[in-house]
């Protein structure tokens, strides 16, 4: 029991004294996962919207693929990204394995289907007549798409936050493609795994608490946004 109480005590001391190593890891996590989320937002919202608004052969298969992608296991993504970025792999020339860029890449691969799937559902949930109404108001196609995106802004925001929540808490891919290099590719989750392994429960708990707080903030915003939506 002592070990837990002592751990929690140490954890709060590390957090409130703004321990440089803990802060560095937190900041790096936010940068990496934030960048990955922005990439997934650009790709996910645009592709999700395009798939929702157009009809083409094989559309159903594409939708099932996107929905499957929402549950991609991070370790599988980590494995494939590692293989691709390996020195003599297809993308080996980039020489980014074990750099923050490779973690961003892996996390973007994980988050994009999540954002895409939720965006697709959000756009499909808009009233079917809305597109015609917007066109009838004299809109160009670009204006129409933009107005639809604005209409679906709340669920689209949830999509982006779900993507961020998915990657900030992911460990498998980050450790495989990043390598958990101190001060370079060590993020909250990989550091927690390592410190726990070494028996440094105080640091592990401090990192764990920060991760929990981040997850709590994201989920609170998500819940707030979803609850604000009117019942239909």
């Amino acid at each position, binding site marked *: 029991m002592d070990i837990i109480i002592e751990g929690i005590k140490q954890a709060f001391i590390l957090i409130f004294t703004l321990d440089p190593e803990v802060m560095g890891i937190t900041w790096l996590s936010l940068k990496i996962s934030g960048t990955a989320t922005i990439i997934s937002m650009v790709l996910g919202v645009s592709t999700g919207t395009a798939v929702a608004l157009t009809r083409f052969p094989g559309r159903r298969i594409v939708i099932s693929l996107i929905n499957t992608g929402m549950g991609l296991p991070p370790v599988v993504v980590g494995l494939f990204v590692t293989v691709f970025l390996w020195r003599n792999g297809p993308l080996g020339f980039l020489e980014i394995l074990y750099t923050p860029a490779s973690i961003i890449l892996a996390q973007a691969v994980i988050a994009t289907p999540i954002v895409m799937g939720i965006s697709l559902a959000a756009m499909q949930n808009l*009233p079917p*007549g*809305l597109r*015609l*109404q*917007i*066109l*009838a*108001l*004299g*809109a*160009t196609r670009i*204006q129409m798409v933009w*107005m639809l995106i*604005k*209409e679906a802004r709340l669920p689209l925001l949830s999509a982006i936050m779900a993507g961020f929540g998915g990657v900030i808490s992911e460990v498998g891919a980050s450790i495989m493609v990043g390598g958990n290099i101190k001060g370079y590719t060590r993020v909250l989750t990989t550091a927690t795994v390592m410190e726990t392994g070494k028996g440094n429960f105080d640091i592990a708990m401090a990192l764990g608490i920060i991760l929990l707080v981040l997850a709590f903030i994201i989920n609170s915003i998500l819940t707030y946004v979803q609850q604000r939506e*009117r019942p239909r």
Partner: protein
Amino acid sequence: MTIERPILEARNLQVLRGGVPVLAIPELTINERQVLSLIGPNGAGKSTLLLALTCLIQPSMGNIFFRGQRITSHHDAFSYRRKLAMVFQEPLLFDTTVFENVAAGLKIRGMKKHEYCHAVEKSLDRFGISHLTSRSAVKLSGGEAQRTSLARAFALEPEIIFLDEPFSSLDPPTRSSLIDDLERILRETKTTAVITTHDQMEAMRLSDQIAVMDRGKILQTGIPSEIMNNPVDECVAAFVGMETALAGDVIRSYDGSFIVSVSGREVEAVGTAAPGDSVICFVRPENVTITTGGSGDATSARNRFPGKITRVTPAGLFHKIHLDCGFPLVAYITNISVENLSLVPGKDVTASFKATGVHVIKK
């Protein structure tokens, strides 16, 4: 009424869905300042026709001409859409304020706030919703939402406006006050309008011309009284509310009128027909009068039949009375008369209608 120039014409319009024609309109002309109602049952193709007329769907065949110019390219369709407005059955409002909703079309046209502000306020005022200006559009009642949708359309000062069943999801009192306002606004703004509805009363009130549609075709076009009183076939007659349809044979004919035998009763109608013709007589329920007591009162109505009330159903401003006079007959009677004459099921009464009130279609 002066003859106006045509504003919109459709020629040989055809829409196929899954290879099956769902719309086939050889010719339709809408004149400037005219209010045309397209009436017909659900699935008659009314909405499809509106979508084709607004170039929101691409017809499989045929052409649309706006002010004599054929719409050929996407660009033509786009510039045409900037001159029209359309209101759908669902209000389809944006998740913002009422003001922003009404301004939507003007903002799409790139107008700045100081340019559209006045037009928006005027339109809000026209539809009596100025007090809702800063309210959220998603929290409006059905009637308020549809008023906002109409205000959004009229704010554009369209050259032609299309209304697709604009009132059908509203409750009767809301509906009736909105129809009053729309009628007034159409008259004030002299906007050309095409309205679809499945309610012939609505069509009668609003329109200069009515086109009756069924199964993708226009069956008859004419001024309201013509459609109501001279339907071309059974389908139109049934649709425009000729509730009583009596099949019979002509047994005698006179100069200008003839007698039809219906279930052994003799019904007199105005017109010409030869004895032996098989016909259907239509009687509008509002043309049937009910009297109680003796049938000795002098009246000019040529058709008088003793009968029994079988059913009385309230229908808002009047009651719908089903009678058995040897044949079924429906009458609309005001609520006051129903009370005064104590019309209840089982009561013996005399039903009468004029020979001129019988519309005959030859089979």
